[in-house]
């Protein structure tokens, strides 16, 4: 399941629901990304998406991950709109027969969401607003999967 939402979400029930009813899945891994306050520099994080295109690009990333890691299932929930520090921005869960594939798929999906999924992030703070672009680290992270 892939979903963009402008509402806050609780990762706990999402993970419980994702784990339910699986007889052959030996491993579920999950990742939750939270908005950081950056020592008071970020009051609000604003996430912009391109409706339709963003979902389609994430679906393509998800399909690649399903095949590459032989996943049984995955879940991606991503916030859009205004997000306060401490709130979850992204939740990813992966289900596989064994742990290594579940861990790696989660890591892979997050690397792709960080710099290949059509989102644009603006930080609003006391000094004004600024757009966040991928860091060198994000590019190095994604290069690991080439």
């Amino acid at each position, binding site marked *: 399941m892939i979903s963009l939402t402008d509402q806050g979400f609780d990762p706990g029930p999402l993970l419980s629901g994702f784990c339910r009813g699986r007889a052959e899945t030996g491993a579920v891994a999950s990742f939750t*990304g939270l908005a950081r306050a950056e020592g008071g520099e970020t009051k609000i994080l604003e*996430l*912009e998406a*391109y409706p*339709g*295109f963003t979902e*389609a690009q994430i679906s393509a990333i998800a399909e690649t991950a399903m095949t590459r890691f032989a996943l049984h299932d995955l879940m991606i929930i*991503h916030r859009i709109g205004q997000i306060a520090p401490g709130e979850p*921005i*992204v939740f990813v869960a992966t289900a596989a027969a064994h742990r290594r594939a579940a861990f790696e798929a989660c890591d892979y999906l*997050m690397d792709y*969401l*960080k*710099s*290949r*999924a*059509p*989102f*644009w*992030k*603006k930080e609003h703070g006391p000094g004004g607003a600024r*757009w*966040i*672009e*991928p860091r060198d680290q*994000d590019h190095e992270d994604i290069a690991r999967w080439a």
Partner: protein
Amino acid sequence: MTRVLLFGRLSDIAGWREKSLDPPPARLSDLRALLTADDAALGEALAAPGVQVALDQVLVRDDAVLSARSEVAFLPPMSGG
């Protein structure tokens, strides 16, 4: 009519997020020239490295022919999660 969409910092530079151009430009390169003639700062930002173009929600790398009802989106470097 061509629908032009700007995302991220590009819409801040232009001061708009969405614009319809009628008559539609024949090619993507014509659209770029039109936008640049109108706003040099935007033209420069659109040509910056890392800015991708989606034509009717499909990424295109080169120049492309626009139809009468194309949607062209300019996408600065993406940053999710």
